[in-house]
C-alpha cells in the first residue's frame, strides 16, 4: 500500500516533460491518470525513482474533430469518453468500450493514453484501437510521429513508444453506428478474458475486428475479417467467419480461464460483437 520513495515532477509543457524524460531515462515513469502505474507502485511491483506527472500539461485532455478525424487527447479519462456526445455521434465504439472499463471511479481518473501506454494484455482499449485502425500520436523532442495501431502493441506491457517519447493523443476515423464491443470479464478484476471490438465501415462494408485479453498481444482477427470480405453480414456469414477469430493465436492460460476456454470466448465475443454491429448497420 505504500510506494517506494520517488522524486515527483509536474512539468507544465510537453517540452519540459520530454526534457525530464530524457534526463532521467529508465528511472522515470510518466504518470497520467495513475490507474495502472499507482497500483503497481503500491505493491512495489514498480519502483520508479522519478515520476513525471503529465496532469497539468494543457491540451492533452480533449476530444475534438479535426479534418475528418476524431482526436482524443491522451489524458482524456475513460469517463469523459463514455459521456462524450461528439463521440456518441461520430465514433460510438469508444463510449461503448469506455463504459465497460473497470468501474466509475476508475473511469473518472484513468485515461486512454495511460491505459494504452501500459499495454495490459487484458485492457479493453486495444480491441477498439485495432478495430478502428487508430493512430497513436507520440511527442518527442524532435516533434511528433504517428504509430499505426497494428504496430503499436509489441508484447505484454510493451508498446512501440520509445523511451524518450510521450503518447499525446489518438486519432480515430469517423464511423457509422455499425460498431460493437463484446467482452467476457474476469469476474474479480473486471479485465477482459476476451473482448472483441467490431467496426463495419459504411462506405465499403469492410469489417475490422480487434481482440483483447486472449493473448499476450491484442490482435486483429484477420481470418474472420477476410471471411466476411465482400459478403453481406448475414447470420450465416457471421457464424461461419467468427470461428476463425483466434486462428494462429496462442491464448493465455491462468486460473481464470484456460487457453481453450479463452479461445472459445474469443469466438463467442467476436460472434456477439459482429451480430450487434450488423444489427446496427
Amino acid at each position, binding site marked *: 500500500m505504500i510506494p517506494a520513495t520517488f522524486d515527483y515532477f509536474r512539468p507544465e509543457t510537453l517540452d519540459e516533460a520530454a526534457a525530464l524524460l530524457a534526463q532521467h531515462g529508465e528511472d522515470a515513469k510518466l504518470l497520467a491518470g495513475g490507474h495502472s502505474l*499507482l497500483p503497481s507502485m503500491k*505493491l512495489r511491483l514498480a519502483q520508479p525513482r522519478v515520476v513525471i506527472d503529465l496532469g497539468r500539461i494543457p491540451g492533452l485532455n480533449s476530444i475534438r474533430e479535426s479534418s475528418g478525424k476524431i482526436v482524443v487527447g491522451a489524458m482524456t479519462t475513460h469517463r469523459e469518453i463514455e459521456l462524450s456526445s461528439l463521440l456518441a455521434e461520430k465514433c460510438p465504439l469508444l463510449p461503448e468500450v469506455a463504459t465497460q472499463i*473497470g468501474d*466509475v471511479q*476508475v473511469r*473518472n*481518473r484513468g485515461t486512454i493514453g495511460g491505459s494504452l501506454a501500459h499495454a495490459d494484455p487484458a485492457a479493453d482499449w486495444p480491441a477498439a484501437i485495432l478495430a478502428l485502425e487508430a493512430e497513436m500520436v507520440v511527442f518527442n523532442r524532435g516533434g511528433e510521429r504517428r504509430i499505426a495501431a497494428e504496430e503499436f502493441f509489441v508484447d505484454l506491457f510493451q508498446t512501440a513508444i520509445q523511451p524518450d517519447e510521450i503518447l499525446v493523443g489518438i486519432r480515430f476515423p469517423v464511423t457509422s453506428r455499425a460498431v460493437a464491443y463484446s467482452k467476457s470479464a474476469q469476474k474479480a478484476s473486471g479485465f477482459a478474458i476476451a473482448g472483441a471490438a467490431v467496426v463495419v465501415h459504411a462506405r465499403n462494408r469492410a469489417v475490422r475486428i480487434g481482440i483483447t485479453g486472449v493473448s499476450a498481444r491484442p490482435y486483429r482477427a484477420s481470418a474472420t475479417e477476410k471471411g466476411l470480405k465482400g459478403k453481406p453480414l448475414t447470420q450465416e456469414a457471421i457464424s461461419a467467419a467468427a470461428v476463425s477469430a483466434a486462428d494462429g493465436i496462442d491464448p493465455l492460460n491462468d486460473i481464470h480461464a484456460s487457453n481453450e476456454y479463452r479461445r472459445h470466448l474469443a469466438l463467442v465475443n467476436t460472434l456477439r460483437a459482429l451480430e450487434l454491429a450488423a444489427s446496427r448497420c
Partner: protein
Amino acid sequence: MLLVHFLRDTCVLTGTHVGCETTLCGACTVLMEGKAVKSCTVLAVQADGSEITTIEGVAHNGDLHPLQQSFWECHALQCGYCTPGMILTGIDLLRNNPKPTREEIAHGLEGNLCRCTGYSHIIDAIESAAQKISKERQRA
C-alpha cells in the same frame, strides 16, 4: 503520499477507509471536483488545488444528505466500513443520472464492494434517495 493517507493521517478525516491495495474495493472513494475517485489511487500531490469531498463533508449544516438518510432508513449498511464509499459513489451516480433504474444503480456500484448487506438494501437506498432529491428539486 497517497491521497487516502493524506486525508486520514494529515487531515485526520478517518471516515475514508482502506480495504485493499488494488483499486477494487471502493472503501476509500471520495469526490474530487465532484467526481467519485478512489483516493488510494491518487497521489495527494495530484489533488493539489482540487476540491475534495469526504464523507465528513456530505451532510449540510448538520442535516443528513438524502443518501445518508436513505441508507439509514433502508438498512443499507451493517458494519459500515464500505458505507462512506458507497454514499459518495451514490452521489456521483445521482448527479449524472437522477432517475436510475435498479440495473443502472448496480452498474454504478461496480467499484464498491460490500460483504455484509448483499447490496439489495443499498440499491433500495439509492433509489429512495433519488426520489427524495427529485422531490426536493420540485419543491425548490
